[in-house]
């Protein structure tokens, strides 16, 4: 029957421990993320501040633009910086992020080679200030950040975009991780629903487990042809430690951390997400529920006694898939 060919049964999904959107919203986000802490993660400038205070490395801030009359300053602000990135402080889902690789003679070049003028940059910034990309259309402000020079190990894995690592942190424990690689069809963006490739990562080793694009498994990057199964994230334990430290830093029980690997500075926290998506399960070929339930069974006092490194160790031992 048509219906059974396209749809699976909820019992099957439940048995496999796959988390659904409603369960995520009610049982995890609603229960473990206090509403009052949202501004910390929804506002990237605030996230940056608490991250710096907590000793978590973040991309360098070139400057901020908070008022309309400052918009024309943008050219002056980035003069000394070859590449930069313009972001709304309260954007979500990668909306409103403009990446400029280099600029010359008043022309700014995007990763795909197309150019834009100072006027275009100003219009983009004006849109951000008016709240076009922010949640609920609230007035926003602009962050201008240094471009991340991503680690050479990712050469060929990502097309026209920064590959980032998404780790789900539950009560301070890393529970699942994936790498998000942009493709031509995702237009340099790292969101899976826009066509980016998701590579599930083994929590013990940081090695690729499987790769998917648009929900279906694949082996080679569609644009560069690299074998995605060869991927291994360097500085893996350091990266997990950085992610896990975001629990204390933000106070949120269920978060997604987006981390990039800079050539010189190592893992940098790009942003926190209080409502991380569920595609990570598809990328990993595993459900989140068995892992979060395992942590939910642990006593809160036990968790409090554990250090960040101990929690990462626990996650590596319990949720790792490959042998070292």
């Amino acid at each position, binding site marked *: 029957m048509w219906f059974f060919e396209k749809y699976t049964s909820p019992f099957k999904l439940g048995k496999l421990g796959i988390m659904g959107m409603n369960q995520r919203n009610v049982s995890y986000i609603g229960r473990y993320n206090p509403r009052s802490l949202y501004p910390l993660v929804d506002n990237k400038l605030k996230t940056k501040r608490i991250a710096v205070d907590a000793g978590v490395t973040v991309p360098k801030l070139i400057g901020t633009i908070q008022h309309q009359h400052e918009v024309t300053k943008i050219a002056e602000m980035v003069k000394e910086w070859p590449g930069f990135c313009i972001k709304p402080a309260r954007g979500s889902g990668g909306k409103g992020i403009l990446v400029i690789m280099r600029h010359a003679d008043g022309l700014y070049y995007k990763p795909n080679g197309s150019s834009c003028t100072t006027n275009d940059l100003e219009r983009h910034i004006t849109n951000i200030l008016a709240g*076009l990309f922010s949640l609920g259309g609230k007035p926003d402000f602009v962050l201008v950040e240094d471009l991340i020079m991503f680690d050479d190990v990712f050469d060929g894995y990502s097309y026209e975009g920064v590959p980032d690592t998404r780790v789900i942190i539950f009560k301070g424990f890393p529970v699942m991780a994936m790498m998000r690689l942009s493709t031509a069809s995702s237009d340099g963006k790292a969101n899976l629903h826009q066509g980016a490739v998701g590579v599930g990562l083994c929590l013990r080793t940081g090695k690729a487990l499987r790769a998917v694009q648009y929900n279906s498994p694949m082996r080679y990057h569609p644009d560069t042809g690299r074998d995605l199964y060869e991927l291994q994230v360097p500085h893996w334990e350091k990266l997990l430690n950085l992610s896990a430290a975001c629990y204390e830093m933000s106070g949120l029980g269920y978060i997604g951390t987006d981390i990039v690997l800079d050539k010189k500075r190592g893992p940098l926290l790009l942003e926190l997400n209080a409502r991380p998506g569920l595609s990570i399960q598809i990328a990993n070929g595993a459900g989140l529920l068995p892992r979060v339930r395992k942590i939910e069974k642990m006593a809160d006092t036990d968790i409090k006694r554990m250090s960040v490194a101990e929690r990462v160790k626990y996650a590596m031992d319990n949720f790792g898939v490959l042998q070292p």
Partner: protein
Amino acid sequence: MVSRRPFYIVVALLYIIGLALVAYRHLAFNVPLWPGEYRNVWSAEAKVEFDANGGPVIASLAVPDTQEGFTRVGENTASPGYGLSFVTKDGVARAEWSISSATGHQELYYRADMLSDPYAKALPTTIPPIDKSLEKQPIAFAINQILTAAKSRSADAFTLTREIVKEFQIQAQNAALLEQNKKPAYLLVEILNQADIPARVVRALNLEDGRRRQRLVDYVQVFNGDKYDLFDPVTGVQGRPDNLLLWEYNSVPLLDVTGASKSQVSFSIIKKMVPVSKALQAKFEHTELLNFSVDMLPVEEQALFKGILLIPIGVMVVVFLRIICGLRTSGTFMPVLIAVAFLQTQLLTGLLGFLSIVGVGLVIRSWLSKLNLLLVARISAIIITVICIIGGLSVLTYKLGITQGMKITFFPMIILSWTIERMSILWEEEGPKEVFKQGGGSLLVAIMAYLAMNNGLIQHLTFNFLGLQLIIMATVLLMGNYTGYRLSELKRFKPLADELHKK
């Protein structure tokens, strides 16, 4: 972890209170659960005729009020040239016509619309005084004979009344003597008074569809303590027959005319079938009953509420489609507002109007985007553009003779403008495919919400049963607590599930 118990208690309470309110309204006020039910409304018209003497005339007619079995839902008079007022004399309402001079045959009309209503309020009644002034012999003797015989076989006022009527048939001679003198109803009252039983003659109309030139018939109201019952003075049958409307029930003259002669009243009756909603509206228009319903509001506000009370239905549809089915829409409740507009415009006109406005708006917006304006100013420009489009389309369709087109003015313009803005951004960022996906999703949800809100049964229920709002509230709360999979996720995770299952 926060306990979920209070939540479930609140939900259960909402369901219980909501259902109780619905049941109460259904049982106590006879509001049907199904639309399209009809109620009988009897239009009883009294025709007053007299020959005027040429001078001033005052004609006063007893008029019926809400009573057991019937609710008066309207009254009407036709009396060209006459002044009319409804006056209250000794606590009894009467219609009173007056004119300074009239000559010749005159006809005045009074019509009462009585709704058949088993839940109508009973009339307020006073117990009539007992008049024991005895008739002369031999009438007093005949009365006594009948009374004595009847008394021996009776236990209370009601049984006595029946026995007296029976005794009329037995003592035919006495009866004939008495009936020379008085009409049976008055005679019965007199005999009952002799036995210290309060009673009075009331005048009633047998409601029968299409009858003309009817007369009122006499009934006797007999009191037993503070209860009373009606008796047919000729047959002795106890109780109020169906379709018997009491017209005059206060022992006052039915018609009182001064300045004229040969006055008389006759009645004609028609039965009308009226939809329940209309009947209820008429019924509750003038009541001070403590009953939570919209029927008591003025008609204009009722129409407004009719729309407002439907919004929770649309909202519930959106909640269902988003939480259970996982449909995506642009703007959470935009579809509901569009659906409300569809209610005014009808679906096809609404869809065409919506698509043309958004389409034209998107074209103009793409030009605006080149101007590098501030967002608020740009949206404002779009709002004005939308208004211009709506105005233009209205004029155009009117010229073409399509009056339906005028109805697109019902669209919420600010919402439309924001929709155009969002779609335009979406177009720039994610391409036209995503625009059609989200726009189509929104329209689909809007159409579903429209179909639910346009449903006759649902409109009837939401309008007549405010308790339903609590039930909807509880349902929405329950859905908000739903942690199961969405329909869309069953599809999304299907490849994953299949793969994991194979392993």
